[in-house]
């Protein structure tokens, strides 16, 4: 960045045009020795010009670099600003979606709770209905058993009544036959008596069956 700087050296005393006078008879006393002239230093005018040029070039380069850098930073800043705006828009969009989803979730949760309540009620009702059906089945089965029982008892009672009727009829006829034994053969009477006893025995058996049914 920086070129030669500092004060330009002064040219120094000019050499004398004529030799100094020498005192007679001796060496010159206190005569100044001649100053050696610089052999590598450029002349002042020639050294100033390159430094200015370098400085000018550096200044131009600096300005150009600053311009490029500024443009780059400007565009980068614009890019980031646009991106930030896009991100904000995206975030707002998703925020709106999240808000909508949360609202939907709350509504769905509420519906779910209501549905759970309905399900519990339905389950309770199903269990109650199953129980009612089972009780009805038990009642029906019990009534069927009772009906069967009554049928059996009625049938047994009917058998008893029929057997008793037959027995009584037989006994009446046997009594009639025995009242006039001369008209009937003795063997026939004995055979008829046996039949009457068998019929009355059947009545006894029917009565026993009826009693067994009643005892069940």
């Amino acid at each position, binding site marked *: 960045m920086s070129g030669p700087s500092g004060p330009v050296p002064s040219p120094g005393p000019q050499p004398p045009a004529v030799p100094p006078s020498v005192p007679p008879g001796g060496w010159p006393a206190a005569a100044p020795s001649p100053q050696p002239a610089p052999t590598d230093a450029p002349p002042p005018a020639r050294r100033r010009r390159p430094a200015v040029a370098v400085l000018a070039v550096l200044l131009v380069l600096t300005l150009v*670099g600053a311009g490029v*850098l500024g443009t*780059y*930073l400007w*565009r*980068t800043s614009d*890019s*980031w600003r*646009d*991106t*930030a705006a*896009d*991100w904000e828009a*995206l975030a707002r969009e*998703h925020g709106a979606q999240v808000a909508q989803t949360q609202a939907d979730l709350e509504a769905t949760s509420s519906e779910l709770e209501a549905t759970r309540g309905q*399900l*519990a009620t*339905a*389950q309770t009702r*199903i*269990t*109650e*209905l*199953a*129980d009612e*059906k*089972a*009780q009805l*089945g*038990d009642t029906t*089965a*019990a009534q069927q*058993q009772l009906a069967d*029982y009554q049928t059996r008892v009625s049938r047994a009672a009917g058998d008893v009544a029929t057997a008793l009727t037959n027995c009584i009829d037989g006994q009446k006829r046997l009594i009639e036959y025995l009242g006039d034994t001369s008209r009937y053969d003795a063997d026939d009477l004995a055979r008829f008596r046996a039949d009457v006893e068998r019929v009355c025995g059947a009545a006894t058996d029917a009565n026993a069956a009826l009693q067994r049914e009643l005892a*069940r």
Partner: protein
Amino acid sequence: MSRRVGAATLVGVLALAGCAALPQPAPPVPGSVVPSSAPAPSASADGSQLSPDGFDAAQRMAVRIRNIGCGALSTGSGFAVDEHTLVTNRHVVADSAELELSTYDGRDVTAEAASTAALADLAVVRTVDALPAAPVLADADPAVGDPVTVVGYPLGRQLTVTDGRVVGAVTDPLNENLGEVLVTDAPVEPGSSGSAALDAEGRVIGVVYAKNADDMSFLVPVSTLRDLLADETAFAPAPACG
């Protein structure tokens, strides 16, 4: 001359380093930041307990048994062990002229045949219709203090689920079973006979068959049930009345 070259090189390096430190342009904003694969829900509503109709497995496996005997009527409980087989007590199906089965939701299930075990108060009933659900039998008998859940039809009424704990093991007070039986404090009633006793995981650990005056219930342990189910000769056709 070499100093100038060095200085120029240094300036170039510094310029490149400065360029590297400059902010880069913003990357493009994606159209969506929603993950392509849906994440797994952090909490589930205990989906393992869901069933087609909201009833849990313990209720779905329960079966109500109506024993129509010769001049007698009784009810008991049972539970499915597979699609067409249920387990209950021997005394539940004894002296039967007809068995009528119904499920937790009131559906009738036609019974095909009943078989009873001679060495325990257990019976199996084959069904024509499919049973809704069947539980898993536990691998081992429960220990004292383990929780127990009884699912059945006490007094022949509604299906109930009652809880208790295993309080011990005793010799069968009714002499209906070989070996020891389990004692629990889970409340049961007449009609609960044949109910499944489940552990905390819903596995069968025993079959209710009796209770005493102290409201202690007695279970045929699952080990006995397993042994008998594995023995084809353990069950014989149940004698019918009439």
